[in-house]
């Protein structure tokens, strides 16, 4: 055989090997995709699809670099709490996926609700487990005046900010204002708020309406700054995202077989995507999963939202037309409903449920599988909360899948 023939043969063999390898890769990748229906694959890609950059027209300072920087200062500063020891980061530590890992939050006192992680919360529709706030800036204000959290009042918060040179300068520069008016302690007492009971001695009640409005405006600026910072807390791609990206692009993936089985349970037998859908793996709404009928949940949340001075429909919103509270109506079935939590990074955000009653993901799966502790469903007639009756293997698969989110 001549040298040129040998050379051609070698090239053809190489091309053949290359085609075989490419074919193997292509069919292996497609083999994974073919295991799902078109609708299932659509739901899967929606989960891994990165959402558009956050926007909230009610907060003109969202995405504002100086507001983000100042909001970060406020977020980590304990100076604005009553005893100057509690900051937002106390319950939302960065190093622990922006949550405290406790069953219920502990600020100035022990609270009643589990601390949610702050990952991606800028994309929420409602805030708190009961949805009593409709914006992140409105949410950020409430812990200041909650006795179990920071235990302060809006007047005390602004005085504390005014008394710290660093915070005062940052605030006045960002909002192009001057807080020196707070020196008038007759018009602006050291503490007071319309939402905290101080008995007959609540100085807020003696303030002129225009002074109350002024304080509210500055207080809202604090919320908008913190919200601007929280808007930057976006989770990086997960193992699941990398799996979907690889399969979508006909690339090889080392996604665990058990997690793949768990994904199928999530989509099919578990019907989990009824509530856990989209990038956040939540439909951002409220449901009664029969955990506790004694707690008002969304029912109380709606009551508070509708009378809040800081909802998106208020004069403190930078765009009240974006409010959606006119579509919220208090109805009997809201009793016992809680917000569907995001499942992003769910492995790292234990314990679970609004009161942190389940210590592990496995506990949650056991609940949905058997509904052992479920209370009778007396306010709603939903038929989607039924025991899933998962086998031991299915439970493990589902847990493995959830661990990749």
């Amino acid at each position, binding site marked *: 055989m001549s040298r040129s023939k040998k050379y051609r043969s070698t090239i053809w063999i190489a091309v053949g090997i290359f085609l075989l390898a490419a074919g193997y890769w292509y069919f292996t990748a497609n083999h994974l995709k073919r295991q799902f229906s078109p609708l299932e694959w659509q739901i899967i890609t929606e989960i891994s699809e990165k959402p558009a950059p956050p926007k909230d027209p009610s907060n003109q300072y969202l995405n504002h670099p100086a507001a983000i920087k100042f909001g970060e200062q406020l977020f980590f500063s304990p100076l604005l709490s009553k005893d100057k020891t509690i900051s937002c980061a106390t319950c939302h530590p960065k190093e622990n996926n922006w949550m405290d890992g406790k069953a219920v939050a502990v600020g100035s006192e022990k609270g009643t609700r589990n601390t949610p992680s702050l990952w991606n919360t800028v994309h929420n529709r409602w805030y708190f487990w009961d949805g009593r706030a409709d914006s992140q800036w409105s949410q950020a204000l409430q812990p200041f005046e909650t006795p179990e959290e920071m235990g302060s009042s809006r007047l005390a918060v602004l005085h504390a900010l005014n008394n710290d040179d660093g915070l005062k300068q940052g605030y006045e520069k960002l909002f192009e204002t001057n807080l020196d008016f707070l020196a008038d302690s007759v018009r602006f007492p050291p503490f007071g708020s319309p939402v905290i009971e101080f008995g007959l001695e609540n100085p807020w009640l003696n303030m002129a309406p225009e002074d109350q409005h002024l304080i509210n405006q500055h207080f809202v600026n604090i919320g908008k700054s913190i919200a601007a910072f929280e808007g930057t807390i976006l989770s990086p791609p997960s193992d699941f995202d990398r799996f979907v990206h690889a399969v979508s692009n006909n690339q090889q993936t080392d996604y665990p077989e058990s997690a793949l089985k768990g994904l199928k349970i999530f989509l099919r037998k578990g019907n989990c995507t009824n*509530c856990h*859908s*989209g990038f956040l793996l939540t439909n951002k709404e409220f449901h009664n999963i029969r955990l506790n009928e004694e707690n008002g949940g969304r029912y109380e949340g709606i009551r508070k939202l509708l009378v809040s001075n800081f909802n998106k429909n208020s004069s403190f919103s930078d765009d009240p037309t974006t409010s*959606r509270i*006119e579509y919220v109506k208090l109805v009997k079935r809201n009793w016992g409903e809680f917000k569907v939590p995001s499942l992003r990074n769910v492995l790292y955000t234990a314990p679970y449920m609004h009161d942190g009653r389940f210590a592990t993901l496995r506990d949650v799966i056991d609940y949905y599988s058997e509904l052992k502790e479920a209370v009778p469903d007396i306010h709603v*007639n*939903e038929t989607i909360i039924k025991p899933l009756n998962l086998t031991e293997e299915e439970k493990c698969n589902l847990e493995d899948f959830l661990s990749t989110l």
Partner: protein
Amino acid sequence: MKKYLTSIFILSLAFFTSCDTSVSVSHLVKIEFEPAEIPFNEFFNVLIELDTAHFKNVDLQQMNVEAIMPSHGHGMNVQPIVSPGEKPNSFKASGMLFHMRGDWEVQVFIKHADKLEKATLDVTI
């Protein structure tokens, strides 16, 4: 999705089924969506046009719009607001939100001539 909605609408025109609490008038009510393709878990509007020969002098207080998921036993988590539409005898329900995928039934209730009349349209998201 658009084709599917159109065919569903044609089917709803073709059938006239009565129910216990109301009279079905699906063939006399035109239901469209804004945007035309209903966005999943995003707010949208329903545009309603009543047959002028059957419905006379219908005002806002007589109109109500809801949506349910029959197989789930629940509806929307929001209550739409009905306002006058651009054409005569037309209305717009804003604040609709389908927060789950699956089969939904849009329900338009019209209190008319001492009866509660109901038009429905099945939609799959």
